[in-house]
């Protein structure tokens, strides 16, 4: 009897263990995109979605241009249509027009799109026109895996309006084969008297970038350069500037606002911390590739991902591109937190504090919401839940130009990158550690999310680009930005901006 019992238990256990595999294969064969993982069980898995019937219904989506986020949107739309019978119309729009394309009909009381893609910092302007994410999806297995930071980024004062599909933060990417090269370490020490290592500060970053600028240090017969950065005006450059500013201007001992002083709503943007960062950035124009001050995000990804520079910092995409199978520098790159600074500005005392400071920048990323006026809200949320289900998400993460980056706790398991993407163990470990440490940090900066956010960021782009082009000094440029910010605050209403900004400050001050 005991033998029979053991036998039956063994058979049942084997069936239970093997069933996900068989289940995975079934969907993996039909949808090559998830071949590596197969379907991953969850509330919005392929299996669950195949039980839905949306025949005769149409879902309209406005998303970004192909490939970044536009390609996965279209791909998952096709898969969703196949599984549910729905008709899905996808419109592709350039990044700069995503805001207006949704906002104009929103303002006119229309909903030409059921789903609108944009950036997470649109949340305050869009939230009144978006449907909050229903409880059913908030309690889904997929949502429970989302990190606390990214639940915060997608929510406004506790209510989630944007469905998490992407997680973004800026961090440092460097050529591991150069910084770890004993010959270069020796040569650098001999020439500069300093250690060649992963830069701890922006000054070190600049020194190393300058040293490795304009000569062929990887022996491919072509010149390499120091750093690739997003410096093109209006092309996300304000985010690059904030990445460089956090080390000097985000002081953990002065809560109450990074961008403004929350109490007075006086802009901090022209304080010595930001000015120091802009000074470094102007200096960086000397060690970027030719034409580097006109680099947009695509150029930065291509430049670092193609092996042209020693450093880069911004979203994951350049790093993922460098780690793809077709990359000439696969497994030759490393990641680390954004460099810090040996001093940090104290806006309360009005003095520099001479101590090491580092602050992660949880920058805005791709975000998506469902229009309040949509007549197919359930189908729209199902699509979004399906978009970011386990299988799709893991497959999307492996493709650099898809623009989908880690935002789930399960993404921080190095095995995911080692097994499915073929990364070296130490690179996968350092990558996941970099991301995890940012999640844990208590000195994080979140994106500015106040009414009329574009007016503020556009002013930063204009001012900083004038400094990079040599039209104004860093102080003059940021004084101009501060003046513009004050004018915007007056137009929007001090109380309104203060109220909005307080929500972000709560997150930065670890009170939410």
């Amino acid at each position: 009897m005991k033998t029979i019992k053991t036998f039956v238990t063994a058979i049942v256990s084997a069936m239970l263990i093997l069933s996900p595999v068989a289940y995975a294969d079934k969907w993996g064969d039909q949808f090559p995109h998830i071949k590596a993982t197969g379907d991953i069980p969850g509330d919005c898995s392929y299996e669950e979605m195949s039980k839905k019937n949306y025949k005769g219904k149409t879902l309209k989506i406005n998303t970004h241009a192909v490939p970044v986020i536009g390609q996965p949107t279209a791909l998952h739309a096709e898969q969703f249509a196949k599984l549910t019978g729905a008709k899905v119309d996808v419109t592709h729009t350039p990044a700069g027009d995503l805001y207006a394309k949704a906002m104009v009909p929103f303002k006119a009381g229309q909903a030409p799109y059921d789903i609108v893609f944009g950036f997470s910092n649109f949340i305050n302007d869009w939230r009144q026109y978006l449907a909050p994410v229903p409880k059913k999806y908030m309690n889904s297995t997929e949502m429970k895996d989302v990190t606390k930071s990214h639940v915060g980024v997608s929510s406004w004062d506790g209510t989630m309006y944007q469905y998490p599909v992407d997680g973004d933060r800026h961090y440092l990417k460097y050529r591991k084969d150069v910084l770890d090269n004993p010959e270069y370490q020796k040569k650098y020490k001999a020439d500069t008297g300093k250690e060649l290592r992963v830069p701890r500060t922006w000054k070190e970053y600049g020194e190393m970038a300058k040293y490795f600028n304009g000569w062929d240090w990887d022996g491919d017969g072509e010149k390499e350069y120091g750093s690739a950065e997003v410096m093109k005006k209006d092309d996300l450059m304000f985010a690059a500037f904030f990445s460089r500013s956090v080390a000097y201007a985000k002081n953990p001992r002065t809560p109450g606002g990074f961008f403004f002083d929350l109490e007075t709503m006086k802009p901090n943007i022209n304080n010595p911390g930001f000015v120091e960062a802009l000074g470094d950035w102007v200096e960086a124009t000397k060690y970027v590739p030719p034409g580097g001050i006109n680099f947009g995000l695509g150029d930065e990804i291509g430049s670092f991902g193609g092996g042209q520079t020693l450093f880069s910092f911004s979203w994951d995409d350049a790093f993922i591109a460098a780690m793809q199978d077709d990359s000439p520098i696969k497994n030759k790159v490393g990641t680390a937190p954004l460099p810090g600074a040996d001093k940090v500005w104290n806006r309360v005392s009005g003095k520099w504090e001479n101590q090491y400071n580092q602050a992660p920048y949880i920058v805005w990323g791709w975000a998506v919401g469902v229009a309040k006026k949509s007549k197919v809200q359930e189908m729209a949320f199902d699509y979004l839940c399906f978009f970011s289900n386990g299988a799709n998400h893991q497959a999307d993460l492996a493709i650099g130009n898809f623009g989908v980056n880690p935002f789930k706790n399960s993404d921080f398991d190095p095995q995911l990158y080692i097994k499915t993407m073929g990364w070296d163990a130490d690179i996968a470990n350092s990558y996941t550690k970099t991301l995890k440490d940012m999640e844990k940090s208590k000195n994080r900066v979140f994106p500015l999310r106040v009414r009329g956010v574009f007016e503020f960021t556009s002013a930063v782009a204009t001012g900083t680009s004038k400094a990079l082009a040599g039209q104004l000094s860093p102080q003059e440029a940021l004084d101009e930005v501060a003046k513009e910010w004050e004018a915007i605050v007056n137009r929007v209403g001090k109380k309104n901006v203060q109220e909005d900004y307080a929500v972000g400050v709560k997150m930065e001050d670890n009170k939410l």
Partner: protein
Amino acid sequence: MNFKQKYVFLFPGLFVLIGILIFPIIFVIRLSLSGWNSYNGLNFIGLENYIRLFTDDPRFWESFFRLSFLSVTTVILQYVIGFALAHMVWKDIKFQRFFRVLFLIPMMTTPVIMTVIWRTFFHESLGPVNDILSNFGMSPKWLTDPVLAKFTVIIVEVWQWTPFMFLLLLAGLLSLPKEPFLAAAIDGASPVRKFLYVTFPLMAPISIGAIIIRLIEASKIMDTVYVLTSGGPGTSTETSSFYIFIKGLREFQMGYAASMSFTYLIIMIVSLTVIAKVLTKLMLKD
């Protein structure tokens, strides 16, 4: 006989005119008197936007003067090159038809696509232009030097729109009467004198028309700047239309952008009327 019915036939045209011209202008004027942006509706704020524009926005005026420089320079170059090319293929030369078609090709291409190609050409680290020039020890900063970037915009604009000028001027040349040229030939006029005293004066009315049409078009330079430089480096290639685009569709300050658009429209109507009068006086003085 009662001809009142004739007015009925005017309705379709009038309806279209109201729909596509009069209503948008009235709406822009109304919009310009509102603070419509991402956080306000169509609320009436009087002349606030205009006061801001005239007293507190030097960037608009800088972009306007930059636009004036770019449009006048490009149109002069287009006129000179277009006239030269038209003059060349007006005469009996070999492969005349081939050249006539060849010179028109740039105009037939899509401006945005061609600008992307030009941007690739002028890319300072990956583009073919600097690749060739580097053999001679040169690597100009086509898109990142504030002065040179303006000239890059001019090069692209001239390349794209010279064919339009060429087409108008060639049509003009082909329609000129033959008698004055015969008379000049009988008098033994040299080619230069023939051009200066016969061709050019006869072409003056057509030239004025062509220049004005191109000035109107050039004053709307937007796609080239958007794709090539995004108005940078800094604000060195930012034109009025690009600045209005940033304020309206990037920052969503619709009310303010409308006030800039309306002001810009008035300035353009006045300045182009003056330019047309001056050109007529200069070129048609006899």
